[in-house]
């Protein structure tokens, strides 16, 4: 993917020539008979960071999970609508039941709210997905692992203890390991569900900086309850809100516009709460 020219992040500028990477149309998610999200349509732009904000329970996680079909694993979850992933050769329909979900999840990585390194060594955490996707050569494995750890700023901290259990790392280190674990598979898109909310402010700052560095190299969709963070990292912001107990996308636009000149009154009130 070609890196896109990025403006000054603090200003929340227009990020780039908007090229849709994911096109979502009329997405609806329900658990059993309870709809939790309906009528969501938006484009996720290539190389940009899109921040999803909104109150608890409005379906942000459900939205994210449907993008990499993790909803398949949740009993009773149903997803309707259309999600198209831009391909070299046209587009790929992600909700197609005959889709190769493993290949899809390799292209769309995910970071969870609670760091979830597997109960094994740091090295094995990174080797496992690589091996499962067919990388066998020891030198290649070692090189990929080192690169990924360096990319998340963890290499110098763990180079001497690669065989130590991953669960001995601090929370922030664990989360960065999880990001590295997603990066080794060379995804195009990264979905992040409140990646900093389980971390202390310093670790959170480190991870946030790390996410900033992904801009232009990956397409990132990040859910966050921290509006200041959304404003700092996002090129685009999507505001979800509940109407009659069902989550909806209320407003989507450039970060600067959403935060400085929200159109919808609900957005204005929610953003306003941040100042008041």
């Amino acid at each position: 993917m070609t890196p896109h020219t990025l403006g000054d992040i603090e200003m929340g500028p227009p990020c780039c020539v908007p090229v849709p990477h994911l096109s979502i149309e009329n997405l609806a998610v329900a658990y059993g008979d309870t709809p939790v999200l309906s009528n969501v349509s938006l484009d996720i732009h290539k190389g940009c960071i899109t921040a999803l904000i909104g109150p608890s329970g409005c379906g942000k996680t459900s939205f994210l999970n449907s993008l990499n079909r993790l909803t398949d694993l949740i009993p009773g979850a149903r997803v309707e609508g259309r999600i198209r992933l831009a391909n070299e050769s046209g587009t790929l329909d992600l909700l197609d039941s005959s889709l190769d979900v493993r290949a899809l999840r390799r292209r769309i990585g995910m970071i969870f709210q609670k760091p979830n390194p597997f109960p094994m060594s740091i090295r094995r955490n990174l080797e496992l997905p690589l091996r499962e996707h067919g990388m066998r050569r020891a030198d290649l494995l070692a090189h990929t692992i080192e690169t990924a750890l360096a990319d998340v700023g963890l290499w110098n901290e763990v180079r001497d203890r690669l065989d130590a259990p991953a669960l001995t790392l601090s929370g922030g280190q664990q989360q960065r390991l999880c990001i590295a674990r997603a990066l080794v598979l060379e995804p195009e898109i990264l979905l992040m569900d409140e990646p900093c909310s389980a971390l202390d402010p310093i670790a959170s700052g480190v991870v946030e900086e790390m996410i900033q560095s992904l801009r232009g190299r990956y397409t990132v969709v990040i859910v966050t309850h921290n509006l200041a963070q959304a404003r700092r990292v996002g090129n685009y912001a999507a505001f979800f809100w509940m109407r009659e107990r069902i989550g909806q996308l209320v407003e989507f636009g450039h970060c600067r516009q959403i935060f400085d000149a929200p159109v919808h009154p609900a957005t204005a009130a929610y953003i306003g709460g941040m100042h008041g």
Partner: protein
Amino acid sequence: MHNPGDRLFGLALWGAAVGVTAVFAWLFADIARLGLGSLSLDFIATAPENAGRDGGIAPILVSTLLILGVAVGVAAPVGLGAAVWLNTYTRAGSRGGRRIRLALDMLAGMPSIVFGLFGNAFFSVFLGLGFSILSGGLTLAAMILPIFIRTVEAGLGAVEDGWRLGAAALGLTRSAALAHVILPAAAPAIGAGLMLGIGRAAAETAALIFTSGYVDRMPESLADSGRALAVHIYDLSMNVAGGDVHAAASALVLVALVACVNLMAVALSRRWLTRRLAV
């Protein structure tokens, strides 16, 4: 801080703990007093004579280990498979899964004599295995399966969802996630299930009398009949006048065997844990 109710409750707990320990100590002291004198390397290494009053328990020990080996060798893979299967279904909240659980709980509480009769009818007679170590082992496998499956299934259910979802999000196949992440995470539960099963199997008498039989010769193959330790103890104390001493000595060996197995299990699961957490 301590009100009288709390005090009384604490005392009651202490009383119960002391009571249980005392009963066990008394039991143990009793068999130790009787049997410790005749316990020796010879006792373990020689064949019984004079219906067990003299000699040792070598062939019986071998039969016991063979029966346990068959039981665990069959129950472990079958039980793991069943637990994994059941876990996938109960996860989806299906009613079938709940029914199977209920059935397993009922089977787990079934008196062992029922398994003995079943094993005799099915393995010994219907499958033509006769009175043999194989019949006995398979019967014990059937007997310990329910409790093993339930323990492992509970362990699988307790595995963090984060790992499950994390593995799927990395595009791991279900079998890879199971083999590399979920089963290792459930290892302590699997170990505990095995130990519960082995403990129960090692102490089993009723189910074996009808399936692996009484013969106290050294077994030459799994098709031979073999006498298990618990059966030997039962026979010595009920049917052989003057067999008390060797019954007690055999009981000591059995207790030691079960204790060993349990300690091994604790050590194993602790090693699993420390390897992962290195606390």
